[in-house]
């Protein structure tokens, strides 16, 4: 990896961990939700560096486009919640949280640069799995081949989640 690419990776890591830190310590719950969005974006960029572009896009579509909106709706649903100032948690754990977050950045960086190096060093016949278009197809092959049972289990899980979620949100008489 060139230095420029490494810099982008480092920025993504700092974005992820820094935003996560703000999520944890910010007293305003709406700001926490907004920084969660940036944290999700940072994770998506890290997926890209790991060679998993399909997962990165899924991360953005599901988490940024779906979960963040859901969280924002949930916060805005409850009128008293965005006036609420969450103080006690932030002040008590701020120092360990910052230390932990700062410790996480080098770990992530090391892990992802190593992964990228492995991708680069992969033998030519395996290179196609990482480099070109078949990557999404590889996921598809896995989902329809060795992982067919989990794939179907996802369907049942999604169905259950759908039924359960709308049941919870339904007005009770």
């Amino acid at each position, binding site marked *: 990896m060139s230095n420029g690419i490494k810099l982008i990776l480092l920025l993504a890591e700092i974005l992820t961990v820094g935003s996560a830190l703000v999520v944890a310590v910010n007293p305003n719950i709406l700001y926490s939700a907004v920084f969660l969005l940036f944290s999700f974006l940072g994770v998506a960029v890290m997926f890209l560096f790991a060679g998993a572009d399909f997962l990165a896009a899924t991360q953005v579509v599901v988490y940024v486009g779906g979960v963040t*909106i859901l969280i924002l709706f949930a916060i805005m*649903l409850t009128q008293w919640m965005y006036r609420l100032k969450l103080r006690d948690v932030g002040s008590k754990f701020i120092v360990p949280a910052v230390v932990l977050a700062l410790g996480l950045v080098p770990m992530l960086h090391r892990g992802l640069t190593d992964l990228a190096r492995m991708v680069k060093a992969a033998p030519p016949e395996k290179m196609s799995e990482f480099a070109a278009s078949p990557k999404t*197809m590889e996921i*598809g092959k896995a*989902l329809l081949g060795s992982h067919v049972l989990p*794939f179907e289990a996802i369907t049942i899980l999604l169905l259950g989640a759908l039924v359960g979620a709308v049941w919870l949100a339904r*007005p009770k008489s």
Partner: protein
Amino acid sequence: METGYISAFWFIVIAAVTVPLMLGVGALLRPKSIPTKKGTQAYECGEDPIGSAWVKFNIRFYVVAIIFIIFDVEVAAVLPAATLYKDAVLNGNGAWVFAELFLFIALLVLGLIYCWVRGDLEWVKGVTKFAPKK
């Protein structure tokens, strides 16, 4: 990482920089603003706003978002299998992939039908049921 994402990175950076850049150009061009009492109020067609705008709103937005996420995950899970489909058909394995896709979609259609029948897709819910008496 693909070279294409380097372009994507620059697109995102340049688009993000465009916003403060344009606002900055505006700040250089425009005359100094003199805020007035009416001018700094929330705009409600000239009326003085009553109370905060940050009001509680209906839970149906939340229901829509939940149903959306479930379907979104479904689409994301189906996409890799869908990219395989054409090759599988040409190689004679079409039935297997088709069965998978069909089962996956059918179960979600079942969920959609459940929501539909139970009235979760109705935007105006329970008007008669929860209407105040008299």
